[in-house]
């Protein structure tokens, strides 16, 4: 599927080394609007580093990153997030001392305007803003199916539920692009199917572009419009899931094990 529209997120020649090791070596990537792109590769291939560089946690040694044409290089993580890039993490980063609802409301931080002084005096407009934020947060919780848990503490939730809340939190500000770092890790088969359905709805109902780093091959292959494969910091393949699965270099990268014969890789 070719697209004539301008890419939502474009990365060119991204390079980064950590003390002599090339974590990223001239990586190029272009995401179309409302695309789901999977990123796979063996351990240490640079997948999470790619996410970290895009969202500004690390500064690349070389290369360009643009979001709708605007350059992101050199900006801080919080500034990039403010421009419409959402991110979830491998390890749970739920705010442990807040309820589920408060967690998601925090996701609206960049869209709310109450400062310390206004908050202190609890002006009418502050209360109105809070009420609206709570309503939007509840809506998002409904979207991920967690609305009944709104007043629970994060620590009371199961691992899978925590991840759902984190997704809701990342979504509530309507980001343009969502970077997901292994959303399916540690989840049962049933939950993985739920994540699959959720990601589709995020793309279809909200038009959000998704960049998905995952090890659960089945999920990546089923849901991605296209897949990018990294190895040793370099891109070694890119294309539709079926094409990538048959690519000999990709197979070799996974230690000689044929991706085709992987029980979870299905042709669409």
């Amino acid at each position, binding site marked *: 599927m070719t697209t004539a529209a301008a890419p939502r997120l474009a990365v060119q020649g991204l390079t980064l080394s950590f003390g002599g090791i090339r974590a990223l070596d001239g990586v190029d990537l272009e995401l179309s609007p409302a695309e789901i792109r999977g990123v796979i590769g063996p351990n240490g291939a640079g997948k999470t580093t790619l996410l970290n560089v895009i969202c500004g946690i690390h500064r690349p040694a070389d290369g360009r990153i643009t979001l709708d044409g605007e350059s992101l290089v050199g900006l801080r*993580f919080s500034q990039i997030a403010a421009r419409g890039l959402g991110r979830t993490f491998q390890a749970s980063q*739920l705010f442990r*001392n807040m309820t589920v609802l*408060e967690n998601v409301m925090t996701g609206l931080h960049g869209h709310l305007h109450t400062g*310390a002084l206004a*908050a*202190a005096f609890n002006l009418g407009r502050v209360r109105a803003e809070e009420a609206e934020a709570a309503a939007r947060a509840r809506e998002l919780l409904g979207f991920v199916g967690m609305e009944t848990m709104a007043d*629970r503490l994060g620590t009371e939730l199961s691992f899978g539920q925590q991840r759902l809340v984190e997704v809701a939190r990342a979504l509530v500000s309507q980001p343009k692009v969502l970077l997901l770092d292994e959303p399916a890790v540690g989840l049962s088969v049933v939950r993985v199917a739920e994540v699959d359905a959720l990601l589709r709805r995020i793309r279809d109902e909200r038009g959000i572009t998704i960049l998905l780093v995952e090890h659960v091959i089945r999920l990546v292959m089923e849901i991605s419009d296209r897949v990018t494969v990294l190895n040793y910091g370099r891109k070694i393949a890119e294309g539709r899931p079926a094409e990538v699965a048959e690519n000999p270099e990709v197979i070799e990268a996974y230690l000689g094990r044929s991706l085709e014969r992987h029980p979870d890789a299905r042709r669409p």
Partner: protein
Amino acid sequence: MPSIGTRAQVMGVALLALALFPLVANPYLLYVVNLGVIYVVLAVGLNLLLGFGGQFAFANAALFGIGAYATGLLQVRLQWPYLLAVGAGAVFTTGVGLLVALPALRLSGLYLAMATLAFAQFTQWVLLNWETVTFGAGGFKIPPPRFDPLPLTSAQGIYYLSLFVAAVLVILAWNVVRSRVGRALVAIRDSELAAEALAIDLARYKTIAFVLSAFYAGMAGALYSATLNFVAPEGFDLFQMVVQFSMVVVGGLGSIWGSVLGAGLLLAMQEGLRAFKGAQEIAFGLLLMLCIIFLPEGLISFLKRHMRGWSEPLRRPDPRR
């Protein structure tokens, strides 16, 4: 555990009792409770930085001292009237807090602790040695403020002023904590990475927490100078800092009402042990250790667990009963 009423009821009764207190109290008791009210302001301000913001800084006692000195010196050296001096003192302290925050908050954890500790020691040195301005180690006396045309003695006037200021500042803090700003602070405390992912500017909010606590410390200092009618360096040293930490931790980190509780409790203890200077240190040290080891959530956690209506946003009680 029998319910003692909702939080609103308890606080309302307490406020009323405090407002009527001067009618029945002797001067010493009035002074002590006045101090307690000032400690509430200190503890709530420090909790904003330490409990909610999670920033471990040792600057609060020094800022408390700067507030007291600024207010006192404006009165004694420049003959400013008291209320004007209070406002200016608080603003000045806030300014100093901002100047300290800008470089210091680039550090975190123990580095921040040490840098602010260094600032605290430096402030002590200035107060002791810059005698042309601060009167040095002996300190200086302040004439009691007058509250004409209100029919109040100086001590009563200061008491009501302190009570009023404390009530207002506690409510303001309570509002801030329940707002977007409070969520940002707790987010930073619980996960800086996730906070950034939600477009929260770390430096900005850490600075806001620091500046708020500086303002509270400055106001407290301004009130303190008039309560004591005397200002000297030794009330703002590291022991004072430990007392303030104790109030916050014993009451409950991250709980506004816990700080109110902690302030009252610690003052009662401090007064109770006033006669034994050495034992005071030992007792405080022991209390601090015991509270941290056995009651990591502070005394307020008892209230929250066993009584209705005491829970607070951003810090719900442990649901396991």
